């Protein structure tokens, strides 16, 4: 069964640039898809196509069971869009902004007024409700913009970089609001550059670059694909790095990608890919101790989404030769597969 958002082979070109080059997306009802990618990867274009603002050159997209090209008006009635730049009229008050949007969603005057009041309360804007929006702080504007997208409680929401430019406290608040929405059953497609944000909010993640999906899966799946866990040891005595590396290679996971032990002489740091988690860490410590190797630091390091992001987009960003080398070393990562598929 197709999800609340379903896209197949979306293509959109602007002149010579293929902003979308065959993008497939699927977001199950009530879940959050995080669309990740560097600047200019095609995230915003994808959102614009799915919200009927842009017509795709090829491919098809269905939102809330409605075709975005053939039933744009019906789609618009079922979605809310909160953009990268808070799209509120700065000379209108918060209340006026929300009432206007409510009426343009075809609510009756009284309904629109009541709904505006509710949303202003919910987004902690009641005190500022009758001030022009241009007097609002960045965080307040963002909340007003989100409130405007929620006037009719649409079943499907699109948020294009909802927290870009917000301070940590406002970002935290925004996350809480988004979590509430999703808990209430809203399907959400979220674009972001903050991996922490995707990690916290998204059930599934889709990484795009140069208009193509280069990886998809849950946050954990993507991290596992990047190379899994590693044990990092910093030995006290530089002379011992060789021995320590030898010991640690013994613990190396058989199928783990990423080559053998990595030794950084100047920092006395040795890293090996492992599988086995915390239990293995204890074994490594015992073994090193038994050999009389003194250590300054030891840790089990799991890849962050930042690692995933840099790894994936690093491939795509580099020239073909470099990407191939890296791809071979990494046991043919997804970027390399994608490249071969072209």
């Amino acid at each position: 069964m197709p999800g609340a958002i379903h896209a197949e082979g979306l293509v959109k070109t602007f002149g010579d640039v293929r902003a979308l080059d065959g993008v497939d997306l699927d977001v199950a009802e009530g879940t959050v898809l995080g669309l990740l990618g560097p600047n200019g990867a095609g995230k915003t274009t994808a959102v614009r196509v799915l919200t009927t603002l842009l017509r795709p050159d090829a491919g098809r997209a269905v939102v809330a069971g409605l075709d975005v090209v053939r039933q744009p008006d019906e789609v618009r009635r079922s979605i809310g869009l909160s953009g990268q730049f808070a799209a509120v009229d700065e000379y209108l008050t918060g209340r006026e902004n929300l009432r206007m949007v409510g009426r343009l969603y075809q609510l009756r005057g009284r309904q629109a007024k009541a709904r505006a009041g509710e949303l202003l309360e919910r987004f902690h804007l009641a005190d500022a409700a009758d001030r022009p929006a241009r007097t609002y702080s960045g965080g307040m504007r963002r909340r007003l913009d989100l409130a405007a997208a929620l006037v009719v409680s649409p079943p499907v929401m699109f948020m294009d970089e909802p927290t870009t430019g917000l301070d940590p406290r406002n970002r935290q608040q925004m996350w809480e609001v988004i979590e509430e929405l999703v808990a209430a059953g809203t399907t959400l497609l979220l674009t972001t550059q903050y991996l922490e944000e995707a990690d916290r909010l998204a059930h599934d993640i889709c990484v795009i670059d140069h208009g193509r999906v280069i990886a998809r899966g849950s946050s954990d799946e993507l991290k596992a694909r990047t190379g899994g866990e590693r044990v990092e040891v910093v030995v006290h005595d530089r002379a011992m790095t060789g021995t320590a590396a030898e010991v640690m290679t013994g613990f190396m996971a058989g199928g783990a990608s990423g080559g053998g032990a990595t030794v950084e002489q100047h920092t006395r740091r040795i890293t090996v890919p492992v599988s086995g988690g915390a239990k293995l860490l204890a074994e490594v410590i015992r073994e090193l101790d038994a050999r009389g190797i003194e250590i300054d630091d030891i840790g089990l390091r799991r890849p962050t989404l930042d690692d995933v992001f840099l790894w994936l987009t690093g491939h795509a960003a580099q020239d073909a030769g470099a990407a191939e080398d890296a791809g071979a070393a990494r046991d043919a990562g997804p970027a390399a597969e994608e490249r071969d598929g072209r």
Partner: protein
Amino acid sequence: MSVATGAVDRHRARRPVQAVRDSLVVAQRNLIRMKRIPEVVVFAVIQPVMFVILFSYVFGGAIPVPGEKGAGGPLVYRNYLMAGIFAQTVTFATAGAGAGIADDMHKGLIDRFRSLPMARGAVLTGRTIADLVQTALTVMVLAVVAVLVGWRIHDGVPRMFAAFGLLLFLGYAFSWVGALIGLTVRTPEAATSGGLIWLFPLTFVSNAFVPTSGMPPFLRAVADWNPFSATVQACRQLYGNPQGIVSHAWPMRHPVWASLMWSVVIILVFRGLAVRKYRTATA
């Protein structure tokens, strides 16, 4: 979710009703903005007042109106001039519409509107209606100034209102040209200058400020068929103001009809183009 369902049910109401309603919601928004940014309205009024004063007192004595008794004095020219200034004023509203729409585009508001289930032309119609209100205010103030410098009507109040009606209709038509410019150029600054540049030749190669009888034949033909000239000539007739020597070109002999026709044609063409552009417009 009940709110959303209500909206969907109500949508089955007739579309034209929705279009009017949506346009009025947007017009209201733009009028609130005008109230909150009074500078814009003030400058819109000052500019034509300045023109009235400059033309009346600086050029007035030097420009004869042929065909009038003894080519008239400064007062004759002022009465001749006023219809031209009125017409120029209403067309300058074009720049306002263009800049406003370009600004909405720039700020992402057009994206928001386009993601809403509202009537297609409503954002632009709402803007042009709000501009019409502003233009009407400007013309009212200007009429008072005109009376102060000696302008008079001679054919009764109903015909005067008919003339103002033609002027506002022309202004409304031109605001659709502005809307198209605003959607095309994307930045408010470009829309302001892009909205003004072509207005200068349009308003000067016409009968607005000087009689066309003194122009070379080619230019005179252009001036006679200029939509702007038709409205100016129609107003002179309706106000009972001096007309100079009127050309035999069809629009000059039937200026009221020509004015109405031009305005209708401009609205049809530019509204069509602007709404089409709007549907694919992106910041």
